[in-house]
């Protein structure tokens, strides 16, 4: 049953804005801005950028013969990637936890597009933070390096750190999108990465090398291997990103 009421003479004009889909580049920039607009996001980003400098300083001060630049970066880059995973998880699961996903999908209802923008934005953010890690690690190492300090493989290690950092930030975003609850996603991720992978590495070391993303990043940055770590990281990236999109597209927003 419907009833039509008298219409007034004036009708709000249809605005040109209504026909302009927000461009993907704008959405990507906004996702970076969102991640940096909260205290948790800023704190994680700042910690990821600043902590390596202190750690390298300590290593240089405490060791008579500190490890090579590549090994140092492998160690610190892998540790920082744990924070980058959290940045990714909070960017997606945090939206569900706080309910802001409603605002996001009301403005851009094509959820796959939103997640594509999130993944791209977080990859950029992860790469940028990793680049800062490289700069601070090498910067402090340069200042404290003695005559015997080895820079062998430092360039390749830097590239690997930036690439793996970007990939693992997106892995976190995929996990967060699939689980949709920040505490559960963070707890589950760290349980798998820290406990599950440790158990696997001890029980089946060969399997662990083919599954553990943090070991893969370490090996890649240190220069021990290339193809296997890249394949492991790519598999994690693909599975988590696709799972995140698949679940997000189906999940009702209550």
């Amino acid at each position, binding site marked *: *049953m419907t009833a039509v009421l008298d219409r007034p003479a004036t009708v709000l004009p249809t*605005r040109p804005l209504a026909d302009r889909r927000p461009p993907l580049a704008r959405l990507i920039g906004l996702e970076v801005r*969102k991640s940096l607009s*909260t205290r948790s996001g800023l704190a994680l980003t700042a910690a990821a950028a600043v902590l390596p400098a202190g750690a390298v300083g300590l290593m240089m001060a405490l060791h008579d013969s500190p490890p090579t630049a590549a090994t140092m970066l492998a160690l610190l880059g892998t540790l920082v990637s744990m924070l980058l995973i959290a940045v990714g998880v909070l960017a997606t699961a945090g939206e569900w936890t706080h309910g802001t996903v409603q605002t996001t*999908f009301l403005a851009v209802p094509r959820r796959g597009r939103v997640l594509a923008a999130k993944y791209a934005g977080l990859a950029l953010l992860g790469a940028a933070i990793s680049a800062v890690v490289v700069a601070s690690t090498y910067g402090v190492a340069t200042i404290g390096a003695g005559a015997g300090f080895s820079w062998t493989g430092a360039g390749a290690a830097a590239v690997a750190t930036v690439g793996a950092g970007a990939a693992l930030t997106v892995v976190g975003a995929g996990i967060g999108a699939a689980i949709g609850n920040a505490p559960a996603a963070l707890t589950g991720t760290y349980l798998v990465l820290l406990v599950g992978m440790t158990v696997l590495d001890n029980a089946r070391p060969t399997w662990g090398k083919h599954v553990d993303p943090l070991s893969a990043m370490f090996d890649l940055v240190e220069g021990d291997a290339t193809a296997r770590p890249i394949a492991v990281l790519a598999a994690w990236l693909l599975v988590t990103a696709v799972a995140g999109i698949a679940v997000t597209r189906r999940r009702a927003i*209550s």
Partner: protein
Amino acid sequence: MITVTGLTKRYADSTVVDDVSFTLEPGTVTGFLGPNGAGKTTTMRMITGLVPPTAGEAKVCGRRWTDLPNPAAVAGTLLDAGAVHPGRTGRTHLAIMAATIGVPSRRVDDLLDTVGLGNAGRRRIGGYSLGMRQRLGIAAALLADPPVLILDEPANGLDPEGIRWMRELLRERADRGGTVLLSSHLLGEVEHTVDRLVVIGAGRVVADGPIGALLAGDGVRVRAVDAGALAGSLRAAGLTVSAEGPALTVAGATAEQVGRIAAAGGHVLTDLRPADRGLEDLFFQLTA
């Protein structure tokens, strides 16, 4: 314009919204009423693409929500004032939304002033009261000055001044040709604000029409200098009269009938009007 056709939502063993249809024309404020769990919020979420319908469809300005290139420029929404990140400032929240839609950032400060949050815009939303969050949500809905507004319980937490402001805002939108869908439990507020009502009960539309027609009662209410004598004349004419204090309610009669009987009997009338029901009476009658 909002067009809802056969909208249905079923979960495993229950039907939350059952074949709901209505059309909301530009220039109207429509009250969307129903008791808790009647399906109002689910219907609004299906209209806005947040919940996929089991059957039927909803269109806003001729398109499904998911087909709108820039939906927030077509329809402003306030579905849950709590759907904001508590760690962001109100200004940042609006600025992110404005950038998403493509609205100039200067509009953010204008709207914060408009909704009375000019001094609170740089504070974190976690420290906002419910009323302040509602105002922020209304500001967000108005960012693109859209022709359609969909508001779920927007008056919750607003003080009397805020409620009056919102009422004037909604009327002004409708007067400019906007379409407003307003869900609220504040029946008195709805009665003073809307042009028409859609009432939903147990997932189905139980009433849909202009508020005046829905509230119009069957009969007239009349007051006279000598109410007792008038009641006698009316009963003598075969009408059913009930007295509530000094006022008489004459069931099934028109104002003309009662006026003629009063004139014939020489009764002095002090009031004669249709016996309207209150919205509260109508609501409980329809949703009981």
